[in-house]
């Protein structure tokens, strides 16, 4: 898989970030394993230390397995003044996990996110690449049950 992704981008040092993004998105656990990083290092000819440095610099990358759906809740000022803390509490309460944790069934991970550019529909969250705005308890419940049914 790693090899295929690298070939689709071409063997070029500057493609490191897009390659790591694709590798992470290609697996259900949305993370980069130690083996992934080693393979990328070998195939791109970049020292492991630098691959590791990049993989730990950007907040999108995770070196730990995560859930199928990653729920990123914005906690910047425009969302906070429109109720982001309630949104965070609702998600934590319903899923029974804390921020940064994954549900035992491996379905959901809760994360903070910086501004999603969705301030006109604050409070907002991004779930596996999709934006959800104007969140309230009812909407959060229905989003989660929709995702569970998928």
């Amino acid at each position: 898989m790693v090899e295929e992704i690298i070939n689709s981008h071409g063997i070029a040092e500057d493609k490191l970030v897009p390659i790591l993004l694709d590798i992470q998105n290609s697996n259900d656990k949305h993370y980069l394993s130690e083996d992934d990083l080693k393979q990328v290092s070998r195939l791109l000819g970049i020292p492991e230390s630098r691959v590791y440095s990049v993989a730990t610099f950007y907040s999108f990358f995770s070196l730990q397995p995560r859930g199928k759906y990653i729920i990123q809740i914005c906690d910047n000022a425009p969302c906070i003044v429109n109720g982001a803390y309630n949104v965070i509490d609702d998600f934590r309460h319903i899923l029974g996990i804390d921020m940064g944790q994954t549900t035992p069934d491996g379905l959901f991970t809760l994360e903070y996110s910086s501004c999603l550019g969705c301030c006109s529909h604050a409070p907002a969250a991004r779930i596996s690449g999709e934006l959800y705005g104007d969140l309230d308890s009812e909407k959060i419940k229905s989003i989660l049950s929709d995702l569970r049914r998928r």
Partner: protein
Amino acid sequence: MSDLTVKRLTQRCGDIDPRDVSEYISTGGYKALVKALLTMKPQGVIDEVKASGLLGRGGAAFPTGLKMQMVHDTPGDVKYVVCNADEGEPGTFKDRYLMEGDPYQLVEGIILAGYAVGAQKGYIYIRGEYDRAIELMKNAVEQTRKIGYLGNNILKQHFNFDIEVRSGAGAYICGEEFALIESLEGKSGRPRYKPPYPPVSGLWDKPTLINNVETLANIPYIVSNGSKAFRSVGTDNSAGTKLICLSGNIANRGVFELPFGITLKDIIYDIGQGVPGERELKMIQIGGASGSCIPSDMLDVKLDFADMKKNGLSMGSGAIIAFDDSRCVIDIVKSLLKFFAHESCGKCTPCREGNPQLYNLIDDFSKGSATPSHYDVLQSLTQTMQQAALCGLGQSSPMPVVSTLLYFKDEYDMHINGRCPAGICSSTNGGEII
């Protein structure tokens, strides 16, 4: 919709199918590109941008024409145009609006900039959170390539140019120009020492024009209609329009294209329709997370680079976040500092160590454990960061602290005395910190 708004950069947003290049063309799109390539020399394009008085819209307000001239004049066969679409400034969503509403206008702006400075390749670096904008920009580049406006010998001229869209991976610092360039090169996004600046030595140490989305999106209008038409809106020193993003405790949230010269009061009360509910406006933060926080009695300031500077403000990215009187200034500043402490890249000490320390000091106020000597520490720390940090992040992150100490000092004093007037910092009751 308020009649104070202007439809220039946003004229097509919402009215055309952003996936369909023919809708862009049928509404005057790519007219500027044809005009420039067939009738203008690169220097002519630069002269027109210079005459327009266009200032960079990403926050620094550097004259765009001058920057283009520097890239143009720097010797070298290989040059780049980089579009900074890493719009991470909290409360800012204008670039997203432009990319999702009219992606071709940005593509056209980048091609024109490439023609002007003598570049062969352009990059659009879009923050990873903007999934839809990334998809639409990739499509716009592909469609434009299909009709021959990207590629080799564009319009049968000796001009080869192509664009690649790149996604960020969740790092606010990559909005800083050199951090973005480092990221494009496949590295961690940490700023470089300046000088040399990107027009002399940028991407892969080549001359690089790096501009914000909104800046580049202005170029087709300037080339099509001329600098005089461009200057017909705005003020003498701030020509054209500015996209303003209204968010927070404000009734009409969104992106609005406004002429320079109108007052902040008009923006908040006419366009934004004021604070919702029975609440009063307490404070606005202008320019993004590192912008100044000012009280509601300072709204006569004009949306104008010079007038704002005179009043110690910066337009920054064009974000205006409103806070009503139920909000605690200390709590807001604390949340901003948490953000900066998290987003600091760690390269320079003033920023890496300064932001967490600032956070701790403000946290003392919110816990009721601050003392009057905190003010001295805050002053010396904020000054150190402003003067010694390597890039704009660490230099400007103390701004919310500095500006609230100036305009909301009484609220800091109250917290020292164990009282949070908004009742937010207290753990148990209406305002007393236990």
